């Protein structure tokens, strides 16, 4: 699954650790999400969408 997490994070000037803190996940998890090595669960996807004030499909696209 493709996602625009890295761009969204960069737009806000957040580090991976900053985003990890906001989502209560580890930095490794943010890295795995950004590099497409891991697809989030629905609750985490909703949490990400809520944080960025976007819809899930605006952030994640099927690859």
């Amino acid at each position, binding site marked *: 699954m493709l996602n625009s997490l890295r761009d969204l994070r960069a737009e806000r000037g957040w580090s991976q*650790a900053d985003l990890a803190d906001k989502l*209560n*996940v*580890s930095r*490794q*998890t943010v*890295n795995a*999400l950004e590099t497409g090595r*891991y697809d*989030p669960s629905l609750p985490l996807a909703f949490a990400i969408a809520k944080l960025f004030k976007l819809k899930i499909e605006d952030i994640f696209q099927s690859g």
Partner: protein
Amino acid sequence: MAPVSQAPRRYFIEFNAAMLLYIAAAVGRKFVIHYVDDPTLKTLILISPIVPVLLTAWAVVRFYKRMDEYHRMQLLEALAVSAGVTAVVSASWSFLEDAGFPHLQMIDALMVMMLTWGAVALYMGWKDKVSEGRALSALKSVAATLVYVAVGTATYALIMSWAGLQHPWYVLALVATVLFIARMGFFIFSKKSASC
């Protein structure tokens, strides 16, 4: 909900406390047993290491619950691989025993499982480091840990030799383990690496 970043610290404390208790029970029971006549009490003392084993399992469960979903997936994958490897090894070994290979005990299956679990977990951690472009710093860190443990253990052995005291291999192994745990503790409790 406790922050995920606290999970390794709490696990480090709980796991090592359980391990200390395990060592105390496993070693201590051999000394205490000679002073006990009551058969029921003897049995209880002999099986006492089961308690810290259960505490260790409890620490792992608590760690699992505090992890985020990505690390839970990694842990379960490592556990699944280790269970599969253990099943294959134990099933195959029973036939090898028929062909004259040495008889192994149930505890040996646990060793296979733990070693495989650790190896797979290390491999997954390594893949993360490579993906983050931190492979070289990770290798340096591993090398520094090995040097620290080796030099520390050798220093202990030299001091013991200089003092004319014996230092059997299991004492050196214990010293190396303590140094390794101290090093891990330093990493886990330093702000830089406070992540799951």
